[in-house]
């Protein structure tokens, strides 16, 4: 396996926390979120951002790395059953609960006995997928100050949900996560490679190459990773199979990466 094959794994689309990157927008959002969680005074916090800007990474990072906040549970996707959701939360208090053992009202009153004053926070990712009933349940739990909720959702849908009566009149906090700047994209690629001893590959990237990637990534963290990973895969194949023309980073290989990721439509 050549170095390109190894390096491409660094740009997989996962929540590997070693890939932490201190972009200005991310750092600002992180600070705001931690402050709000520590203050325990806002029942609902909305983390809004376009897809691929790092909302999930932010929740995951705080859930796993930040110790001075109390995250009760991190739901990576909205739950589908109200009772199941309440039972999961109640089980956090150390009780073994069987499914359908209690009614919804009993579960809520039990939660109230165990959790209060917004001491614990519940993370719900992809919250734009929540149904009306689920949103109403979250409103009840947050209104009674049982849990503090952090709802991460796409900016477009989030703005729409925030206009609804459930949230319009209630105290909440909005944290917006912006995309990466062109310079940050370049810095991310280089620092990621250098931190993992791929200095030779990092040196192959010229300013024009980073500019090309930034142009097509359009500030999107996920797209940046996708392009770089595909580029490294192309270089890996070209070096392995002996295609000299495509064995280095140049316009051809970058364009091929953009074509393969669907950013350039040729068909």
């Amino acid at each position, binding site marked *: 396996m050549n170095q390109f094959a190894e390096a491409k794994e660094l740009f997989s689309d996962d929540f590997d926390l070693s890939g932490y990157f201190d972009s200005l927008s991310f750092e600002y959002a992180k600070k705001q979120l931690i402050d709000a969680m520590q203050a325990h005074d806002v029942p609902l916090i909305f983390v809004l951002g376009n897809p691929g800007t790092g909302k999930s990474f932010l929740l995951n990072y705080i859930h796993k790395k930040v110790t001075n906040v109390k995250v009760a549970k991190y739901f990576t996707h909205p739950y589908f059953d109200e009772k199941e959701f309440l039972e999961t939360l109640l089980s956090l208090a150390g009780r073994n609960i069987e499914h359908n053992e209690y009614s919804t009202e009993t579960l809520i009153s039990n939660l109230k006995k165990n959790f209060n004053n917004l001491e614990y926070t519940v993370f719900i990712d992809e919250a734009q997928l929540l149904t009306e009933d689920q949103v109403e349940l979250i409103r009840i739990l947050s209104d009674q100050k049982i849990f503090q909720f952090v709802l991460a959702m796409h900016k477009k849908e989030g703005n729409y949900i925030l206009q609804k009566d459930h949230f319009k009149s209630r105290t909440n906090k909005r944290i917006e996560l912006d995309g990466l700047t062109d310079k940050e994209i370049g810095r991310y690629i280089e620092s990621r490679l250098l931190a993992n001893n791929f200095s030779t590959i990092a040196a192959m990237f010229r300013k024009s190459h980073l500019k090309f990637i930034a142009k097509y990534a359009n500030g999107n963290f996920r797209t940046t990773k996708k392009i770089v990973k595909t580029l490294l895969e192309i270089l890996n194949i070209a070096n392995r*199979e002996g*295609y000299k023309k495509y064995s280095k980073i140049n316009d*051809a290989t970058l364009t091929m990466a953009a*074509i393969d990721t669907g950013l350039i439509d*040729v068909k």
Partner: protein
Amino acid sequence: MLNNNFSKLVKLYGKYKARERNKRILKIFLPLFIVGAIALTILQNRNNTPVEDNRTNLKENKTQTEKKEEPKEKTLSHVEKEKPQKQIQKTEVKTPEVQQMPKHIIKNSKPAAPQESFKLKITQRESLYNLLLNHKNQKSYSTAIKIAQFYLNEKDYEKAVKWAVEASKKDPSQAQSWIIYAQAKKAMGKPDVAKKALSIFLKHNYSQQAQNLLDSL
């Protein structure tokens, strides 16, 4: 893993490159083509604008050469053909007397009359230009007859005859072209030609106005 296999990706890249090259060529040549097209139309317009009358003369000549193929219906051009040849008359032209310049030029005394006639000439030219332009676009009886009427009003009888002939070619059954023709001929001192023309018209058509004119001749 790539979404496309490598060789397919290379092909797609080639296709993309070709497309980009074509785009670049188009970017360079399209403005040149547009500028060229605009320049060409301007040049064509310049060539088309001068003297409408020459054009109509040419057309007239053309139609005269093609007369054998024309329908048997009589138009004013037949009458024109039958007219006697012009006789050149010598006339003396008096040289105008030269007047002395006034010694004292009175300020603020503006001659009003010449300005008015100048304005009048301009508006007349404009309306003639519009009429000619209309005829160029439509080439119909109505546009030709308007020009004929214009020249008749201007007492330019030669041209009035010419345009009356032009109008009658478009629609020989209309009385107005024959009437203008007859009026112009009469004014030119050729009442016989006018009579002949009107009688030819009245043989095949009916018009009270044409009849009245014939009676008055």
